[in-house]
């Protein structure tokens, strides 16, 4: 960050996402949500071990798409990316830590557990 302090940066300049990017993202979001909701109604999927990981994976994709394209972090100054991902990582680690502390998640460690 230190390197570009004196000159004006590239705030909102070059390659902005275009209308075609926007509607493609919208379609993908729509389709993923449709898949998620239908998975909920497919017993074979809903009861298998893959269900929770697949749901988390699909919603992570949606989350990332909105953040990267609609919130245009992909095109913006990298400062904004760190201002968002830093706190997001702390928040995610805290959440995971709390899940372990309240025994919602656990790791088997032989004698210790």
């Amino acid at each position, binding site marked *: *960050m230190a390197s*570009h*302090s*004196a*000159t*004006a*940066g*590239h*705030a*909102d300049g070059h390659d*902005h*996402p275009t*209308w075609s990017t*926007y*509607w493609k*993202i*919208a379609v993908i*979001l*729509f389709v993923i*949500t449709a898949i*998620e*909701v239908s*998975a*909920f109604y497919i017993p074979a999927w*809903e009861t298998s071990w893959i*269900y*929770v990981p697949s*749901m*988390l994976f*699909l*919603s992570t994709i*949606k*989350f990332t798409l*909105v*953040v990267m394209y*609609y*919130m245009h972090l992909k095109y913006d*100054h990298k*400062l*904004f990316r760190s*201002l*968002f991902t*830093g*706190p*997001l990582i*702390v*928040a*995610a680690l*805290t*959440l995971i830590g*709390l*899940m372990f502390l*309240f025994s*919602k998640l656990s790791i088997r460690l032989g004698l210790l557990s």
Partner: protein
Amino acid sequence: MTATTMPAAHDESHGHGHHYTTLGLDNRKIAIWTFIGSECMLFASLISTYLVYKGRSVKGPFPHEAWTDPSGKVFPAILDIPVTSASTFVLLMSSFAMVLALAAVQNKELPKTTFGERILGSSKLWLWVTCLMGTAFLGFQAYEFTAFIREGLTIRTNLFGSSFFTLTGFHGAHVAVGVCWLFSLLAIDYKRGLGPSDALNVDIAALYWHFVDVVWIVIFTLVYLIK
């Protein structure tokens, strides 16, 4: 006076109202991203609590299972997935309308000849669509909450009720703030028209709006879809 002097920077104020900034970025945009980072911790705390208390309520109604109370009355699983799926679609698509509104404000000056260009270039239209979809989401939530209360689940009933209403209520309050914000922008658009010089203000509102949307993406999966 000593001979050694420290060089001063070239004049920092060029044009009107534009002060020197280190990165050439607008302060407001840095502030909103900092705020959004902070909001991550806020929702992480709410979501953690919901998850910690999942399955710990000593009595029903429950989100995904039916419950029979001591008197033999049966309370079905309370979450209404079809209705919430619909409201989720509405909120996701409102984000789409929001990016179009921002693009319309940014490209206000571009000439628009075809009908399609005029539609895409209308910031009023897309702000209206976003606002109405946001309001529709709030309508769905109001419907959901009243239905739950009718079915016997209030914020006081059990741990699920407390943590569910607080989590989704906090999100709903954020949506409500966003709707007010967007309506204020719409009012300005009607009063004097939003142009490229307002793009940053619209962008900031849009960032907030999309953030509220991604929070709902997480809530929808963790609360509604995963049993």
